[in-house]
């Protein structure tokens, strides 16, 4: 930084000294700051802080040797970057991440489905070990129910193999060896048991003992224990662990951030019924492939995804002439559901001020009748059911959609909204808010929106316009944002080169900081603005996490404190400091 720059910087109000300023004057100052470039020496840091989950030691040098411009171009073309083999290896045990929903439903069934399998209504998984495990789970559930109902542990109506008490399965010495000794010794004692006995022993262990073993178990054993705890939980855990591992280890960092951005834009709540099994495929096959593609493709992929159709209830929506379900008086007449139609306009495309009416909401909902799911509870797939479709004429945002249409009615709506100027502005502003500043300057948003419209919603081009803008590289953007909880946790682990063996405890930390992953109930998703995260509960949680991590006390993560020059105490202070909360 030369003298002139220093002088100029000192003259910018609100930068050298921070007076007690009002919101309004702060804003005026901000606008000028977006015209003021950051020194060249800070550009790599700016790129790493906004386009990655935080710099690791050595990252800045690596970008320097590649060249900043080339590095950004690579990040915009993630398929050109070889993925980190460490990540791929760590993702391997999380086998649900590569499964179809149907396979997950069978291999990681809910308690209800386990019952149906036992009753012969649904086939068991093909894998004999897994089948055995599930039969044992069912027996254990039945046994427990028997106890609850009759206080009779030896319920004679029990079918199939049950878990025996631990004392019948193992000798005293064996039990003692599982409870005492170093973690390695305890794991070894367990693994020394005959493989066909291990599941029974896990089932018979008191919960505390099982959790104790879990904390020290290697990945395959951890899996076995998770299964014994309840197979349906595994799917959610894999998702959260996968998200953390990718954020921390992926070489395709921008792609990971965009995946988070767009999942959140098209948010789905993991725990709404069938969505438990549908979110994995939604993120992997619907969101991820399109984050740098055409917005229209991304939008259609979400509109046709069973996850979204289920979450926003469209799969049940029906036109006035739809055949009615048979059954007693309590069976509802089927009809229109506005949920998806409204959120499509408000949250996915035009934005709440984008110029639509209640009438448009209903008309859009009519267009999407018949967009439904085959067997949602079995992992389902998209299908168009013409019998549910409202074939009357509709008018959407002034465009007439003639009577007699079918699935194309919904596709026409997607065409109208995907290329609408309000959508271009709404999407551009939201991206700029995530990547540039909480209140992004209007001229930047306008230029991004123009690119959006000119290129038919090419998201890579919109990103390029933003990354080539002076605003992105300005003092207005520089360190102006507070990291989200996911960004804070991932960047802390990256900055100390933590070795993550088990990511679930990190996902719990993210939740404690205020952002439970895949668990935002509302379709709005989490805020992209700093303010959301700046409060006392979040601050205390951040400081505690920082100290825990630097002290090598977060389970599942190894931090080599010898690597850092300072004693671990000050690493914790650094990670919990105000500076580290910003990006």
């Amino acid at each position: 930084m030369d003298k002139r720059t220093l002088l100029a910087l000192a003259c910018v109000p609100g930068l050298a000294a921070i007076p007690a300023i009002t919101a309004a004057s702060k804003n005026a100052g901000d606008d000028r700051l977006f015209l003021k470039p950051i020194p060249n020496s800070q550009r790599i840091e700016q790129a790493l802080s906004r386009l990655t989950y935080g710099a690791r030691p050595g990252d800045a040098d690596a970008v320097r040797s590649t060249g900043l411009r080339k590095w950004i171009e690579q990040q915009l073309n993630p398929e050109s970057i070889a993925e980190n083999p460490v990540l791929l290896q760590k993702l391997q045990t999380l086998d649900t991440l590569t499964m179809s929903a149907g396979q997950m439903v069978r291999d990681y069934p809910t308690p209800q489905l386990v019952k149906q399998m036992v009753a012969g209504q649904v086939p068991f998984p093909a894998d004999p070990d897994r089948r055995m495990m599930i039969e044992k789970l069912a027996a254990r559930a039945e046994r427990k129910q028997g106890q609850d109902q009759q206080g009779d542990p030896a319920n004679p109506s029990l079918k199939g193999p049950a878990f025996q008490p631990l004392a019948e399965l193992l000798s005293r010495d064996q039990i003692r060896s599982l409870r005492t000794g170093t973690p390695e010794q305890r794991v070894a004692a367990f693994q020394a048991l005959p493989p066909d006995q291990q599941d029974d022993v896990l089932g018979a262990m008191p919960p505390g003992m099982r959790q104790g073993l879990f904390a020290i178990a290697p990945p395959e054993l951890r899996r076995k224990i998770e299964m014994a705890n309840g197979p349906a939980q595994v799917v959610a855990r894999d998702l959260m662990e996968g998200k953390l591992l990718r954020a921390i280890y992926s070489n395709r960092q921008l792609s990971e951030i965009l995946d988070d951005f767009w999942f959140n834009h098209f948010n789905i709540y993991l725990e709404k019924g069938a969505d438990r099994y549908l979110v994995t495929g939604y993120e992997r096959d619907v969101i991820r492939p399109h984050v740098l593609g055409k917005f229209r493709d991304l939008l259609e992929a979400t509109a046709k995804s069973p996850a979204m159709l289920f979450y926003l209830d469209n799969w049940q929506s029906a036109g006035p002439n739809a055949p009615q379900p048979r059954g007693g008086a309590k069976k509802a007449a089927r009809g229109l559901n506005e949920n998806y139609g409204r959120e499509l306009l408000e949250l996915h495309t035009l934005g709440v001020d984008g110029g639509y009416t209640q009438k448009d909401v209903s008309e859009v909902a009519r267009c999407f009748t018949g967009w439904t799911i085959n067997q949602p509870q079995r992992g389902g797939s998209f299908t168009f059911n013409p019998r549910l479709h409202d074939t009357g004429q509709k008018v959407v945002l002034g465009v007439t959609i003639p009577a007699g249409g079918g699935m194309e009615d919904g596709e026409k709506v997607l065409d109208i909204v995907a290329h609408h100027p309000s959508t271009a502005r709404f999407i551009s502003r939201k991206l700029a808010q995530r990547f540039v500043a909480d209140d992004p300057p209007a001229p930047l948003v306008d230029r991004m929106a123009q690119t959006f419209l000119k290129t038919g919603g090419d998201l890579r081009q919109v990103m390029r316009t933003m990354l080539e803008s002076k605003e992105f590289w300005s003092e207005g953007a520089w360190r102006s944002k507070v990291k989200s909880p996911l960004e804070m946790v991932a960047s802390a682990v990256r900055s100390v080169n933590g070795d993550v063996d088990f990511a679930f405890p990190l996902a719990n930390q993210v939740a404690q900081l205020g952002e439970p992953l895949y668990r935002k109930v509302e379709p709005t998703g989490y805020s992209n603005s700093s303010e959301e995260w700046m409060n006392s509960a979040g601050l205390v949680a951040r400081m505690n996490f920082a100290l825990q991590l630097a002290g090598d006390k977060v389970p599942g993560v190894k931090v080599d404190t010898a690597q850092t020059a300072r004693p671990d105490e000050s690493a914790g202070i650094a990670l919990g400091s105000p500076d580290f909360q910003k990006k």
Partner: protein
Amino acid sequence: MTSRRIFLRNSALAMVGAGAAPLWLKRALYAAEAPSPRQKILVAIFQRGAADGLNVIVPHGEKAYYDLRPTIAIPRPAGGGKREDSAIDLDGFFGLHPALAPLKPLFDRQHLAIVDAVGSPDPTRSHFDAQDYMESGTPGLKATHDGWMNRALPKAEGRISPVRAVSLGATLSRSLAGSNPAISLETIAGFQVRDTQAAKQFQDMYAQSKDPALRAAARETFAAVSMLQTIQNQPYSPAGGAEYPRGRFGDSLRQIAQLIKANVGVEMAFADIGGWDHHANEVGQRASEGQLANLLTQYGHALSAFWCDMGDRMADVAVVTMSEFGRTAHENGNRGTDHGHANCMFVMGGSVRGGRVYGKWPGLEREQLYEGRDLALTTDFRDVLGELVAAHLGNPTLKGVFPGYAPKFLGLVHHT
């Protein structure tokens, strides 16, 4: 869609000097001030997702209600064995959802009032906008930076407790955000930096931060942490045999009760409960089953436990509930309801003139519905909140709390 501003809090909080005074002294100061006159407290509860008010406060005297909801209406009050599956009559016209049975004694003892056909006059059916408007207290105005509860905090005289305004949860609610100090906490027990040495270092660092918003948030946080230190590790057992339901909402109310009873200077508290957006399968095979019934069970039990737990202290406390809008008067095609307009609010407390359903009933005949589909609005939510702020909290400056609106009082609160 401008983002909200970050608040630069006034530094009246400097009293506690963020740890400058010894803890016993701080405690003594509040303890001395607490008893006379005892601080009035307002607890606000937000039901996020738009609760279906028509199935919560059931207009069982209205024929159109049953016509509009052939499969999800709550049956008329019945005697005998079917009681758990029908509305609990309140006044011959309105009834409580059967899952709210624990609240009936409060109504009978006139500690619980209902306001019906109430809500925000803004026509939006967007969850986000409607919540934002209700929490800012300025329907239709997106530029409002702060929340109505923050503005409603009475002008501080002398010392201010760092925990006078508390939001339960991992983030600060919009209602409590603003220029007056307000904190968020998820659990009282977890609200501390576990290493005292490091805590001191953090405190100094944040005090010197160049970011004014972080600096202010940290100052408030450390003051509050130090305030709560002594009650942190004491086990809390609710009084009066109160049993809070499991789950986040029950936990929130239990901790609000604990804070109030610890006399640490709480004046405003906020908690929320989500999951009310029932577009499909709102009601199960029977009225006492299904998504709405399950949620109301949790909700009703938590409120009644809070009331039990607070005992005599309820004389100083008012609890008010709200939800962003109501739901369509007719059921939709999936045994659920879509986004609507007016709703109901509950007001509970020692100073409340309960045992009545307030508000003018607009009717549910087609021509009486708002935009031909929703319960019409006859009472502005600010009338309810305004009366509580003025008559319960004793803050007469409502102009600042609800700018551009003059609340009309319903007579919900006994004037002392």
